[in-house]
């Protein structure tokens, strides 16, 4: 481990921070962020100097917190950091005990035994580095394949001659619909999602692939809903209660679908699953407000100076409005999300 490597790592951190701090895209693509985070963490594991697991975990935690502080809204960073920490713990257990230890700390056995943490994190373990890097690469592979895995399930959810509604531009949903369109004939109605106009881009992309698409305004969502069979949306994050942190307008759409008893399916990969809850309906820490130039251009400066214009980016959708989560490991009900979280993340890592 040379100083040059340490420098390299520092450089990577700076690059990543610059990428995150970019204001060009209001919301970074979660997939991009997840990939970059995982690659970055792999570099930390392979290139920094650490002697025992505790030091490694400390380093990962520290760098993770540094990244999260740049963009607190990007929960994907935190998710990946927690995944890597869990990987480290698992690989450590495997290396020490030589077998898969499925017992979680909360198991009845350990509680009765009164034992605390069975593993000592301060002892250096020889094979840990290789094992951790391998597992991280597996995680990376899972992330990269998530869109394809979700799209492969499309035929199970879409039948012939359906009318599907969606909003915003989720690459997962785009791959999902295009995957189903290969074998089924259906229609898609896209709400244009002003002021980001992502819906317009999605409509164009779908139409270019030959899917019958209709573009509607956001205001017509309720009016059209009576004709829709399914609502399929993507999301930015899946919260720990099964709710969504999705594109603005998704709550209205989910309410309209609920009112007409239309099922809402959410296509989200596992890296979007976050152990955070919505802490307050005030949404000051939950939401992100961006510049309103798409709503009211600065050309109307006279008016804009007297008026409070708001342009929130996200929306919270409560779990009772959602029927199904389609993720790369299969379909789940929102009520099962807590179980997935306990499998993916360790309880100790919940607060980094």
């Amino acid at each position, binding site marked *: 481990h040379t100083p040059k490597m340490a420098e390299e790592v520092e450089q990577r951190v700076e690059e990543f921070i610059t990428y995150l701090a970019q204001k060009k895209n209001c919301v970074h693509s979660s997939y991009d962020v997840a990939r970059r985070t995982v690659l970055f963490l792999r570099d930390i594991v392979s290139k920094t100097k650490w002697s025992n697991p505790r030091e490694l975990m400390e380093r990962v935690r520290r760098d993770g917190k540094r990244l999260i502080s740049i963009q607190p809204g990007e929960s994907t960073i935190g998710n990946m950091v927690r995944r890597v920490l869990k990987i480290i713990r698992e690989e450590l257990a495997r290396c020490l005990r030589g077998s898969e230890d499925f017992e979680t700390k909360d198991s009845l056995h350990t509680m009765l035994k009164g034992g605390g943490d069975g593993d000592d994190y301060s002892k250096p373990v020889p094979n840990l580095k290789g094992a951790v890097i391998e597992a991280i690469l597996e995680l990376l592979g899972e992330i990269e394949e998530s869109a394809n895995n979700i799209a492969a399930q499309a035929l199970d959810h879409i039948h012939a001659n359906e009318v599907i509604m969606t909003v915003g531009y989720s690459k997962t949903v785009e791959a999902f619909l295009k995957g189903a369109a290969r074998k089924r004939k259906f229609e898609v109605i896209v709400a*244009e*999602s*002003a*002021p980001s*106009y992502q819906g*317009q*881009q999605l*409509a*164009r992309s*779908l*139409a*270019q692939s*030959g*899917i*019958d*698409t*209709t*573009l*509607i*305004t*956001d*205001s*017509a*969502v*309720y*009016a*059209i809903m*009576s*004709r829709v069979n399914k609502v399929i949306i993507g999301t930015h994050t899946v919260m720990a209660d099964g709710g969504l942190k999705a594109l*603005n*307008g998704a*709550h*209205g759409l989910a*309410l*309209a679908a609920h*009112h007409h008893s239309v099922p809402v399916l959410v296509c989200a990969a596992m890296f979007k699953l976050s152990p955070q809850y919505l802490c307050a*309906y*005030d*949404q000051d820490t939950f*939401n992100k407000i961006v510049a309103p130039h*798409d*709503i*009211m*251009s600065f050309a109307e400066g006279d*008016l804009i100076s*007297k*008026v*409070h*214009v*708001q*342009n*929130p980016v996200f*929306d919270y959708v409560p779990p009772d409005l959602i029927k199904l989560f389609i993720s790369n490991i299969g379909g789940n009900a929102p009520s099962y999300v807590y179980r997935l979280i306990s499998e993916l993340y360790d309880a100790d890592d919940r607060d980094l």
Partner: protein
Amino acid sequence: MSDPSKKDQPSKDPHQGSQGSKDVTSSPQKPTSQSKQPHSKQVGGASGKGPPSQSTGTSSGISAKLSKEEKKKQKAERRSQKKVETGKTGQSGATPGGDSGQRKEGGREKGGVSEQMKSQAKVIRQIREKSLSQSEDGKKVQLFSHLHQYERTQSLTKSLGVTSDLPPVIVRLAIMYSSGVICGSNSRCLAMLGAFKKVILDYSTPPQKELSRDLQVTIKPYINFLTTSRPLSVSMGNAIKWLKLTITNVPLGTPENEAKEKLCTDIDEYIHEKIILADEAISAAVRRGIIKNGDVILIYAHSSIVTKCLIDAHEEGIQFKVIIVDSRPKMEGHHSLKKLVNAGIPCSYIFINAVSYIMKEVSKVIVGAHAVLANGYVMSRVGTSLIALVANSYNVPVLVCCETYKFSEKVQTDAFVTNELGDPNDLVPINRRHGNILSGWKDLTSLGVLNLTYDVTSSDLVAMVITEVGNIPCTSVPVVLRLTQMNN
């Protein structure tokens, strides 16, 4: 092709040039020096086929062309017959070059009601074909293929001949409707009644005709012309029904000037009672009981009655804030925003997608209506139902301000059966440096764009309707309708 051309020599020439081009658009380009030609071409090409002929005009194969030729032949024969007839009964001198080609004018002068009806139908068809609003290449969404899509493809005035007998005030009105200069239920109704007042004042009863019957017949094509620029709103429909009733009730034998004056005063009274006083009453009701100090009111798009209520309440000294929700493509909320900001009311402005973000701060939602239907459903600008739904989920009451003259006997449960399809091209411009995402959307066959104008909010989402007869629940609307019918 040669035989028919020999028969109707004078009318064929414009045909030859325009065979390959679309039916409707070719006529305006022809110079009106031969004023007869465009008219006769229209009649020849379209009669007996109706609206579908325009869309099939260019794409029709040779067989369709041939059948058109045949029909033109028949038309020409009938025309020559009519020439003989009208030559006998005498022509109205209303327009120059008035001969059989000008059958619109001729129609009114022929004796017999059935002739009149037929010519009326022809006039209506002619107007429809010349109207600006029908687009030949309009891409319509399948779900709404039963509705007409209004696209601004060409200028209205170009398609009208110099010799059209529509009064300029009506033409002006139609242009203002279709371009969106006059928008909103009340404004459209007021403008229409004003235009009809002018028409009545300029009207002179032809000899041997009764004003009460003839005026109605005169007005009918004007109304149809207005419909081609934009469908009649419910308020306009009710006003026209009332106007026709009032005209028929003019006692026989009244001298013309007196009758016209009486009609104008009646129209003024109607406007005053049903619109102006009603608005005052609604505003007073809102000030008195609805808006309280510290309220945060949410309004949607632009409703003249709602902005009036808010401005009046502010002037009375009630402290409240307003959140204006706006949506594309009409962006009528800007209009409301300007009015309220100029009145000094603290305002916020958001797009409709952020409605669920902002709803937790809102204490009341007040919206206007295009019409309230007989089953208690509220027909209003598209997006109102979404706002009402989100408001309900946050337990915020939704109030609708509506004058009773907008109550309709129709019933409707969804937004599909009757609606107005706006121009889909309005959705394309998005004011961004990088250009429009949807430019050239018509070339993508799989892509359709839908621009709805109205939607229907169910009565269980609306807490109360505020009218000049009181604050009533939605379900009491048929009661009010019955009472007003009884009073009439």
